[in-house]
């Protein structure tokens, strides 16, 4: 062991080492079955390729995973993010709506409400969802899983109510830019992720916020005694998580140009929790990594992509996914690795 250079060892012990290994492995699997996996071309002035697809499709999950990371870091959980996506998607789609007007064979698009207003409105509704969750968890002291379960169940109903049970199609071209557009060849959704990421990292590392969150996650009582207003912190963390879901909803809705109260963001909460876990954040609170969660989200999307391009029969998609997730969790388990290492050492001594 002494022969290995020190930086290498440090890298090995780094929290993000194993998530990165997993991601790299999945990319190699993709490359094995699809030699064009790493190819990137320029089509219509935009980057085009599998990797771009994965980044682009993972954007909503990355956003929600960032919010979820903070919630989980404070020992909480938010299972209502999928419902929040459905609600704010429904709000933005029905506010913009627009209709396809055909006059003398010319198609034109009309928006109901100015677009910035509609987006702000939808984000405000998402914030409202988060405030509700925060109120229940931090204010009423409910168990996070139960508190957010309420919105998870009610949310799709609310979304259905807004859309009157229909899939609302948006016919307003400028709105499509958020989920389909490219700036300097890079998908707009990635800029959105980058902005949220940078803002969050600055907040966490340049202010005491990260430390506070960690303190609350490790021991809320001790955190309170040391002067952190734990309740307010937890309250705003839920609000932030819902807003990330709201931003994700803008991308999702814009991408498919419609809001589907039944399916938008379905099971997103579970993917987000999985992404956070894969990224090395402890579900017991305290230890967390925003960048890890982003890698977790990319792992999930890369896996999904692999399933599509491998030609796995659709009936067993879920089983394949579950097996890979199982394997990934094993790789990342410190306890298992320690056990294996001991085993290797012992057999080494015996030999």
């Amino acid at each position, binding site marked *: 062991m002494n022969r290995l250079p020190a930086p290498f060892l440090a890298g090995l012990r780094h929290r993000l080492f194993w998530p990165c290994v997993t991601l790299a492995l999945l990319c190699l699997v993709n490359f094995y*079955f*699809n030699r*064009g*996996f790493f190819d990137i071309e320029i*089509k*219509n002035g*935009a980057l*085009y*390729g*599998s990797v771009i*697809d994965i980044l682009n*499709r993972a954007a909503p999950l990355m956003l929600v995973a960032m919010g979820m990371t903070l919630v989980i870091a404070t020992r909480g959980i938010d299972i209502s993010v999928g419902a929040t996506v459905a609600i704010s998607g429904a709000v933005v789609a029905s506010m913009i709506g627009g209709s*396809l007007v055909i006059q003398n064979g010319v198609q034109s698009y009309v928006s109901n409400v100015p677009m910035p207003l509609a987006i702000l409105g939808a984000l405000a509704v998402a914030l409202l969802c988060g405030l509700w969750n925060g109120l229940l968890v931090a204010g009423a002291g409910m168990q996070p899983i139960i508190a957010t379960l309420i919105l998870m169940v009610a949310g799709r109903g609310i979304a*259905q109510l807004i859309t*009157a*049970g*229909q*899939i609302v*199609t948006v016919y307003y071209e400028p709105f499509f830019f958020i989920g*389909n557009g490219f700036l300097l060849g890079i998908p707009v959704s990635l800029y959105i992720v980058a902005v949220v990421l940078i803002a969050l990292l600055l907040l966490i590392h340049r202010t005491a916020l990260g430390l506070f969150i960690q303190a609350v996650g490790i021991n809320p009582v001790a955190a309170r005694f040391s002067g952190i207003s734990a309740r307010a912190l937890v309250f705003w963390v839920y609000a932030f998580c819902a807003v990330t879901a709201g931003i994700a909803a803008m991308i*999702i809705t814009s*991408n*498919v*140009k*419609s809001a*589907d109260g*039944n*399916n*938008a963001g379905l099971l997103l909460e579970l993917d987000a929790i999985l992404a956070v876990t894969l990224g090395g954040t402890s579900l017991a609170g305290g230890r967390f990594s925003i960048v890890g969660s982003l890698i977790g989200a990319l792992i999930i999307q890369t896996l*999904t*992509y692999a*399933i*599509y*391009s491998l*030609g*796995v*029969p*659709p*009936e067993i*998609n879920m089983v394949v996914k579950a097996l890979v997730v199982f394997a990934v969790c094993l790789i990342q388990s410190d306890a298992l690795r320690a056990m294996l290492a001991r085993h290797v050492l012992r057999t080494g001594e015996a030999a």
Partner: protein
Amino acid sequence: MLKSRRSLLSAIAAGFIVGGLALPAFAAQLTLGFAQVGAESEWRTANTQSIKDAAKAAGINLKFSDAQQKQENQIKAIRSFIAQKVDVIAFAPVVTTGWDTVLKEAKSAKIPVILTDRSIETKDPSLYVTMIGSDFTEEGRKAGKWLLENYKNPGDVNIVELQGTVGSAPAIERKKGFEEVIKADPRFKITRSQTGDFTRSKGKEVMEAFLKTDKKVNVLFAHNDDMAIGAIQAIEAAGMKPGKDIIIVSIDAVKGAFEAMMAGKLNVSVECNPQLGPQLMDIVKEVKAGKAQPKRINTKEGVFPMETAAKEFPNRKY
């Protein structure tokens, strides 16, 4: 309390009197109790509207109940129809099993039952008169037939398929019908098949992956229009022309599909008709008149190629 009860009683009494007076005038009017699944999709909403409109047009008194996708609500609704002694009960069963008890109650009350849109599993087929609905296998066959007849380019034809929700009847049967027909010509091969869950977002995501992995895709067969619409966006992003570089065949013929067809991006959509109201009302009348019915009646469904879209669009109700 007393006052309100009295007013309630008088209201009931008034109801009886009005009902009694009205009865002779509408002696011939049939009453149909209809228990709908809910309002889960555009298709379902169109289905409900069609039944309501057709009942009005046919002069049938319709008692409508929305089960909000719950079987117990539907059973409750059917029981209340029996208690109200309606002439005929029709319903679109939420699930396939568990209907025997309530249907036996209807049978002993001598009220005929018609199933719409979905069928049930029962050991006693005498519990319902007939089932009227779409034949998903036939829709798949129509899609395949259109493709065989209209695909002109020479050489092998690589087809990618976007399946519906895994395990759902439309996904299984549309796939079966389509494969049955294209088997006739060895040039046609399904090279990739994956589920898109009947949604636009999944349709788009899966198609993106297909296009990166396979350089030669000639035809897309989507089990519904929504997935096709999602896939069209993916094809455009890949710098190809949907409808020309890749021929697109889908099923349902909803409004969105017509818009895509008018834009020249979707080649054909096979109708899956939710407007079974008029046909249902005819059958209700015949059943009441004692005419025998086949156990299975298929709805009338068309095939709409791109060329007919603009002409047909104004007539579409869903």
